[in-house]
């Protein structure tokens, strides 16, 4: 039982000491920050996860032998009844630079004709657009690209150079001084719209793509340069920054050909480095991954099948870590509030020393005295936490309006949405986190109050009575 005087005096002591507002505000600010900042952070992480999810197949089988053939792998993978689509992928590193009349002009204006910096290094990913459509979010990537730049509306084959462009080239080819023959239709390449903007590349721009492969020379093998021409047939955008920055998509057959496996050659291998897998909706992908890996193990002992989260383990881990750090930093604000509460209550206890003696003479016992100051802390904690939760939820809810207002009125952007190519500030309020913050605010204030409260409870009443 909490004696009536404990609660009564706790409230009275608080009411007559406005300095306690500071502690309350401190708690409120800490709770507010922990809710709003983490809500935005989580919203942002959610956004990142969503875009990564779109850029990543349900499952990715990888780690095959160099001689692995897609046809065989595909049969094995598809034998699982929960696999509803597969797409082959061939990854190989290379570099490209703009080519053709326009390209030369570009290089000249950039002053990099002979500069080693004239090249963009990329991961060339050979894909089969038809199968990607079934197996991954490929369609969305192209749509996003169209939104951001100049990719044509989804063509049947995004890697095919539109006819209109070819006709335009023919006209241009008749102009004097143009390298005509090169303008013959070359295979298409998709670059990210982000990259296109950065390198001033345009639709129809020809790229000279260079890579290398080993060629057998008798008993020995030799590294030879391979060079092909591609034409930018469109753009994609996954919002998965790393992927967008480093990838150029080409037809898988074109890349196989560069690596010495001409599709028309009857002895050629249908080279593949990964297989993107779509899993039946509603089925646990992890279970399918384990099964498929087991199926592959016999012929491909090195193969692994990764879920979308495993494929991005490092990156996702890093953003989660950042959020964790942020939480830790913001909890420091809470600690400051706790110190504030501690010192004001410590002061109050000193001022009220004689009251402790008086109360004891009236029949109060130490536990009741303790509760006066513990309850004071409790009231501060509860008020601060409620205030913080209320303002936190409200300001998260109206964050975008607030941002718009401050941009329009003050010219200051609280959160640069442009920077992250978002049109709204994302936020995500997790009830679990809000509860956790509120409860820990309360616990911390109670701990801060407990020390002065204990000091009061341990006072010698006779000495307390004669305290000036």
């Amino acid at each position, binding site marked *: *039982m*909490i*004696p*009536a*005087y*404990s*609660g*009564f*005096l706790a409230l*009275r*002591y608080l009411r*007559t000491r406005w300095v306690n507002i500071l502690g309350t505000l401190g708690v409120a600010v800490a709770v507010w920050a922990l809710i709003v900042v983490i809500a935005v952070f989580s919203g942002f992480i959610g956004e990142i996860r969503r875009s990564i999810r779109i850029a990543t197949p349900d499952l990715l089988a990888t780690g095959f032998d160099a001689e692995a053939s897609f046809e065989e792998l595909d049969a094995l993978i598809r034998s699982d009844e929960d696999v509803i689509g597969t797409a082959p992928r061939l990854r190989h590193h290379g570099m490209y630079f703009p080519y053709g009349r326009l390209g030369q002009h570009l290089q000249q204006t950039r002053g990099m004709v002979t500069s080693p910096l004239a090249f963009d290094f990329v991961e060339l990913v050979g894909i089969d657009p038809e199968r990607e459509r079934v197996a991954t979010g490929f369609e969305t990537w192209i749509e996003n690209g169209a939104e951001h730049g100049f990719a044509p509306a989804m063509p049947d084959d995004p890697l095919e150079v539109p006819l209109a462009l070819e006709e335009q080239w023919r006209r241009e080819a008749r102009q004097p001084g143009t390298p005509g023959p090169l303008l013959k239709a070359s295979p298409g390449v998709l670059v990210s719209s982000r990259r296109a903007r950065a390198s001033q590349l345009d639709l129809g721009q020809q790229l000279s793509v260079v890579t290398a492969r080993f060629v057998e020379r008798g008993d020995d093998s030799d590294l030879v340069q391979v060079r092909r021409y591609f034409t930018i047939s469109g753009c994609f955008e996954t919002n998965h920054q790393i992927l967008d920055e480093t990838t150029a998509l080409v037809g898988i057959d074109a890349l196989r050909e560069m690596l010495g496996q001409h599709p028309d050659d009857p002895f050629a291998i249908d080279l593949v480095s990964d297989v993107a897998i779509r899993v039946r909706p509603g089925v646990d992908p992890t279970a399918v991954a384990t099964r498929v890996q087991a199926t592959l193990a016999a012929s491909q002992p090195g193969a692994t099948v990764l879920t979308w989260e495993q494929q991005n383990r490092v990156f996702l881990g890093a953003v989660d870590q950042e959020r964790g750090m942020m939480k830790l930093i913001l909890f420091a604000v809470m600690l400051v509030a706790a110190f504030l509460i501690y010192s004001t209550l410590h002061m109050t206890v000193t001022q009220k020393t*004689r*009251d402790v*003696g*008086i*109360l*004891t*003479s*009236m*029949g*109060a*016992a*130490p*536990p*009741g005295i303790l509760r006066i100051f513990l309850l004071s802390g409790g009231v501060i904690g509860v008020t601060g936490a409620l205030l913080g939760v209320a303002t936190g939820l409200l300001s998260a809810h109206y964050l975008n309006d607030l941002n718009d207002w401050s941009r329009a009125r003050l010219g200051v952007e609280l959160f640069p949405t442009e920077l992250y190519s978002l049109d709204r500030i994302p936020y995500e309020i997790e009830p679990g986190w809000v509860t956790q913050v509120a409860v820990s605010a309360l616990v911390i204030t109670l701990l801060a109050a407990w020390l002065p409260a204990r000091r009061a409870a341990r006072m010698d*009443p*006779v000495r307390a*009575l004669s305290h000036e």
Partner: protein
Amino acid sequence: MTRAILEASAVTKSYAIGSRSIPVLRGVDLSIGEGEVVALLGASGAGKSTLLHVLGLLDPPSSGRVLFEGRPVHDLPIRERASLRHRQIGFVFQFYHLIPELNALENVKLGTMMDRGLLSWMKDRRELDERARDLLRTVGLTERHTHRPSELSGGERQRVAIARALIARPKVILADEPTGNLDSETAAGVLDLLFRINREEGVAFLMVTHDERLAERCDRLIRMKDGVVVS
């Protein structure tokens, strides 16, 4: 003599100052009967206040026993001692010792909050409020119930303190120089009040005083010197 309510037997008390132990009470025997008014006289530093604190269970004796209605009390658990102090013993101090944040009425009502939870107190608050007001009228404070102690005169403050000591209907009130801080006219009024309460309510008083004439009016007189009762 009537039945004893508060007794001290061979009570000693010493304070440790550094490594030295300073004896303040050196074997005090006394007894206060039901409804008795006892004056406690003695020079400054004789140990009168210390004795009051020991008798009122605020301070444990170094040795010896304190008996309340024949029962040794300092061995009781702290909560029981607190509750005994609350229900049976009232304190009145020279410097009133009111809580400055509370008004007169609240200071008195505080005495009803000691052994009740907040809810049960809220349930009975009208009745308790009425009782506190009655008591304030009994001690002669008909108005100024909502004044803070700082807005009251010394006499008024002491009347509030007396009302507070009475609200739990104690059997004995320990008063440490209750008029020591008042002018003689006000002091006379407060003393009249104390004697009236003794007559009407039958509350026993142990009253520390330096006033020999007041001592004459009491039922009995105890003198202390250097920590012992001399007569």
